[in-house]
């Protein structure tokens, strides 16, 4: 009985985090982006500095008509948002927040699980792009596919580098083995992992698949209402997951002063800082062209991640 309650509580907690943190990131993006552009951003919804803007957006999306184009592949079209969103929920379950089992569910090969499931999320965009029966959606879907191919590799390689350093695939195990000098040691890998993650989330400046000035909104062109909102939520959930993963793998998760009692705060603070960087990059840089995107992945990130693996291996052999 107690075990069941424990599992239910953990799942509810993960669900709450999954529903709240992306909205927080979204609201922060509204405000931070506005101030970086000399604006104020939302000021009315909710009364105080527009804190309820995303709630209002959600209500608006819920009121909209749910449209499926006549020529669309109905079931795939309707399933795509769920496929895009749910993987991030699954990933959140295994991300350790604090020491001593402060995690939804410990998975031994957590790193493999996380990377595999995150790859599934991109399938949602592919399904949407194909099922919409719209040339812009198809173009967006194909660009998503090309981007997935290019950036999954450096992401896996750098994650492998961390796994080599820690000697385990378990996420809590990796954080347990962390020492402060891992961050400079794995710095290149961390940057590559973060960049590749951004590209996989199709965040600016890697948002060629949804380039609104060229192909309307890529794979999501035909979506309205709640399904569209789910795609947007998936993007922000993806930011949370990416930042949390980068924190766990490269920034030492809960490690920091007083990590014994307030370790989970450290994880959240580091995640929030990375989320800020995600927003900051979006405001600062223009979109990369499709060929630049591919060039960056194949000629810069993959060589860098291979070099990181070599460095990790050499250091590992030297210190053992």
């Amino acid at each position, binding site marked *: 009985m107690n075990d069941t309650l424990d599992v239910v509580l953990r799942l509810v907690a993960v669900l709450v985090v999954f529903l709240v943190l992306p909205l927080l990131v979204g609201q922060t993006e509204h405000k931070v982006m506005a101030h970086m552009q000399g604006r*104020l951003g939302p000021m009315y919804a909710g009364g105080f500095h527009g804190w309820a803007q995303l709630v209002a957006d959600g209500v608006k999306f819920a009121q909209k008509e749910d449209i499926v184009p006549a020529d669309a592949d109905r079931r795939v079209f309707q399933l795509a948002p769920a496929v895009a969103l749910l993987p991030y929920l699954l990933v959140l379950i295994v991300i350790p927040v604090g020491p001593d089992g402060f995690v939804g569910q410990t998975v031994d090969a957590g790193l493999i699980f996380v990377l595999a499931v995150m790859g599934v999320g991109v399938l949602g965009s592919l399904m949407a792009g194909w099922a919409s029966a719209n040339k812009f959606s198809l173009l967006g879907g194909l660009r998503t596919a090309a981007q997935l191919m290019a950036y999954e590799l450096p992401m896996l390689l750098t994650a492998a580098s961390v796994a080599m350093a820690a000697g385990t695939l378990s996420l809590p195990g990796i954080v347990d083995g962390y020492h402060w000098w891992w961050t400079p040691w794995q710095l290149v890998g961390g940057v590559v992992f973060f960049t590749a993650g951004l590209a996989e989330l199709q965040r600016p400046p890697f948002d060629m698949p949804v380039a609104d000035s060229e192909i309307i909104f890529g794979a999501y062109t035909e979506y309205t209402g709640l399904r569209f909102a789910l795609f947007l939520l998936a993007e922000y959930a993806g930011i949370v997951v990416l930042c949390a993963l980068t924190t766990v793998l490269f920034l030492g998760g809960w490690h920091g002063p007083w990590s014994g009692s307030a370790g989970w705060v450290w994880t959240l603070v580091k995640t929030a800082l990375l989320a800020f960087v995600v927003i900051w990059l979006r405001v600062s840089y223009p979109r990369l062209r499709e060929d630049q995107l591919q060039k960056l992945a194949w000629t810069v990130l993959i060589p860098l991640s291979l070099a990181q693996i070599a460095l990790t291996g050499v250091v590992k052999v030297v210190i053992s």
Partner: protein
Amino acid sequence: MAPLSGFPGSGLAKGLAVTLRTMTKRTVTAQYPDALPELPPRSRGVIALFEENCTVCMLCARECPDWCIYIDSHKETAPPAAPGGRERSRNVLDRFAIDFSLCMYCGICIEVCPFDALFWSPEFEYAETDILDLTHERDKLRDWMWTVPAPPALDPAAEEPKEIAAARKAAEKAAAAAAAAAEAESEPGDRDDRDDRDDQEKGDA
């Protein structure tokens, strides 16, 4: 930033610095309906009518480049001031309207008005949902007169305005006359002297 310019990626860092710096600065957003804008002096918001000064000379209506001023009037005759004199006639304003859907805010009407009956008011919140409602009649134009700011102060060494100069001269003349009368009462032999001075002042005016 110049020594950094050769370093690869310095452009990326510069971009990040620009956005971060902007974030720490004050925003430029004007929260208009909540906070009223600070308009510069002599803003051209709307044209106000000081109808007490209007003589229905029609100069404004004739000079208006897009013919957006409508004036109706009639003539009234007043009895002669002295018995046996001619009857005096004067124009009475019946309608003064400006169609702000046509007005291009050139201000020519205000410039040409010889009697200072038209003024710029900074008031700008008179949007309407129907374009026909933008033709504002004399009562509305008169109400806007209350929002006209006082004219800007003169420069420190500027010449006195003509109206004030004339009024001051008249006041000085009256005072001088009163003083002369008082003098004449005490010394009845001095009358010629005062007459001379009076003539001189008339010539000045």
